[in-house]
């Protein structure tokens, strides 16, 4: 492969630079419109609110609220990873929980013995190593999964990833290779999970009673809330940068027209592999953090329904749209939890049972919501502009014309798995 590209040198002047006069720059600066003062003010207020929230909740003793926000945060990170695969590269993945699981179990398998080896002084740093380890393991799994499924698209890919997710869960349940400790999960009885760095110190030193009803203190819930918030901000920045780059453009091209992308020189295999790897990475990050936050990694978390839930977050929120993913996670993961919290705290008697009703009907409501969304807002609650154009045919001739004539194989456009007779990818 490198020999094919040895004539390619980005530092060398391009043909255009050699032969053509410089064009007047006519491209709007991509970020120019983003920094309106109103937006900055809103962002600052949002940031302050997010920073203050756990302290206030803790002060009022509303630990459940902190946990809800933390879990929603984890699901946003998880869904941002899936968003790379589904929203950017246009590939379906019904087995997202597998990567969450690899992150969680890898973190436990790395963290518990490492903390012991490091001793009580440094043991806290095991979380950091686990986080990196979980991300690496998960990315590696993403890479390995990408190899066999590289030529699959659409339904086929959905089925394979679904199967993959279930296989992972069943392996974990059955104490695969003696590593996963079956249904009970990790850490094993008798083993202790190390505290993350600084938590003990913060717990001891941050304690300010304002009055006898409100105390500023730093519980482990508050700690994990902040860790997750930081990871989330990092994820948003990183994913946005990747989307807004040569790699991101190759995803967009791949999503729109794989044949044209390949003919224009996009290495579609590489673009898909990166989508799988970078998407899996965030699954690993979220999973590792989740296991430390919950202090356990056990198989029932990583079930098929949760994979569907993450996919629903991306689809309902808005494929390819980071604000969409955030809103989607708040709506799908957050709202049922908030209702439960509300019922437990403010309703009494018969009404307090509403949280049970909500969780009983959640799947039904979710299903209905999906159907309604597909009908009225197919691009999601906060759609990505570009995907909205793709879905709505961009006002031009619709996608169906592309099949005719040019590259049609037995009625199937080339680029669909295995359809090109010996040609195309990986022949």
């Amino acid at each position: 492969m490198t020999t094919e590209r040895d004539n390619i040198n980005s530092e060398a002047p391009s043909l255009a630079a050699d032969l053509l006069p410089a064009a007047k720059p006519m491209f709007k600066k991509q970020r120019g419109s983003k920094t309106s003062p109103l937006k900055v003010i809103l962002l600052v207020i949002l940031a302050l609110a997010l920073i203050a929230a756990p302290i206030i909740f803790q002060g009022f003793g509303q630990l459940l609220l902190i946990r809800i926000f933390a879990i929603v945060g984890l699901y946003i990170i998880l869904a941002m990873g899936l968003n790379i695969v589904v929203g950017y590269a246009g590939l379906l993945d019904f087995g997202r929980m597998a990567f969450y699981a690899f992150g969680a179990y890898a973190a436990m398998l790395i963290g518990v013995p490492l903390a012991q080896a490091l001793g009580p002084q440094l043991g806290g740093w095991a979380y950091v190593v686990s986080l990196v380890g979980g991300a690496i393991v998960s990315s590696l799994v993403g890479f390995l999964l990408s190899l066999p499924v590289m030529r699959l698209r659409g339904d086929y890919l959905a089925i394979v990833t679904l199967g993959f997710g279930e296989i992972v869960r069943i392996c974990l349940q059955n104490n695969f290779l003696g590593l996963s400790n079956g249904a009970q999960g990790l850490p094993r009885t008798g083993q202790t999970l190390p505290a993350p760095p600084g938590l003990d110190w913060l717990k001891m030193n941050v304690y300010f009673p304002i009055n006898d009803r409100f105390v500023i203190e730093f519980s482990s819930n508050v700690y994990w809330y902040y860790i997750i918030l930081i990871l989330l901000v990092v994820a948003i920045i990183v994913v946005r940068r990747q989307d807004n780059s040569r790699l991101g453009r190759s995803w967009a091209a791949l999503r729109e027209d794989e044949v044209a992308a390949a003919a224009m020189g996009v290495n579609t295999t590489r673009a898909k592999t990166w989508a799988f790897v970078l998407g899996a990475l965030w699954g690993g990050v979220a999973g590792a953090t989740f296991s430390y936050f919950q202090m356990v990694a056990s198989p029932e978390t990583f079930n098929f329904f949760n994979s569907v839930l993450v996919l629903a977050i991306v689809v309902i929120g808005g494929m390819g749209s980071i604000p969409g993913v955030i809103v989607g996670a708040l709506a799908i993961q957050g709202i049922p939890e908030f209702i439960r919290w509300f019922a437990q705290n403010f309703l009494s008697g018969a009404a307090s049972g509403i949280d049970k009703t909500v969780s009983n009907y959640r799947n039904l409501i979710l299903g209905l919501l999906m159907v309604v969304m597909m009908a009225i807002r197919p691009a999601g609650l906060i759609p990505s502009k570009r995907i909205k154009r793709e879905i709505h045919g961009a006002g031009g001739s619709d996608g169906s014309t592309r099949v005719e004539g040019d590259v049609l194989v037995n009625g199937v456009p080339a680029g669909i798995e295995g359809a090109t007779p010996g040609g195309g990818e990986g022949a």
Partner: protein
Amino acid sequence: MSETSTATTHLVEAKSATIAFGGLRAVDSVDLHIDAGEIVALIGPNGAGKTTFFNLLTGIYTPTEGEVLFDGRSVSGVKPHVIAARGISRTFQNIRLFKAMTSLENVMIGRHVRTKSGPFGATFRTPAFRREEAQIQADAERWLEFVGLSQFANEIASSLPYGAQRRLEIARALATEPKLICLDEPAAGMNNKESAELNQLIFRIRDELGITVLLIEHDMKVVMNLAERIYVLDFGKLIAQGTPGEIQANPAVIEAYLGKGADAIVRERAEAQAAAETDASRGSTPPNASANDDLLESDGIIMTPPNAQAKEDA
């Protein structure tokens, strides 16, 4: 023309290239060659296998027999993006722009194969990454200007007029810095003015950029003006080759387009057209217009005298 060719002298060389879809030999034992700097046309009736030949050349299909060499190397089984890196680019018969992207973004995709930044550079916004991004954008802007689409840079590709979309596809293909550009019916759907501009553009691609052009086109005015040599396909087989003048006089070509007894039909059609032209003021369609597009288009071969002026320009 009939020299026993050595692989290295030709830019493209097909050696009994064949592809069969089941029993259908869509391209059947085709031998042809294209030299660097030529403008060559590939013509033939609908379904003759022209687009399929492009697909063989650009790696979308692999020949079932024979081979196609580019720069002396076989392209059989080579992935499309690698072929693009070697220097073949193309446009599509049914425009395949990235419809939801802007014109500029479409052309920026064309720069992909000559650039290299990956997720690391993107994540950390390294200086090399920033330089390359700026260069990609600047180059894309130049290519848009080259094809005369600067004013559409920030427009969504699918919102462009049809003729502009065809030129945008050419800009995207040029951005890959090909040695050979394959244009699949670039004038289709264009009005006279647009196709005259297209003629100019194609000459500029060859003369100013030194890029070899292989052209599929049904519009015989365009073909006769542009092509220095023509290959004619019919039912997957090469039935004729030569200069525009030779092709226009070739009985096999006339027969392929018009069927047996073509001469008589040609006379009839000439009369029909004369009648149609008197009707034209009333805006009615010529009698046989919808019967068979090829009959109409082949009028160019038979009836339009070779455009001597344009040949002198070239």
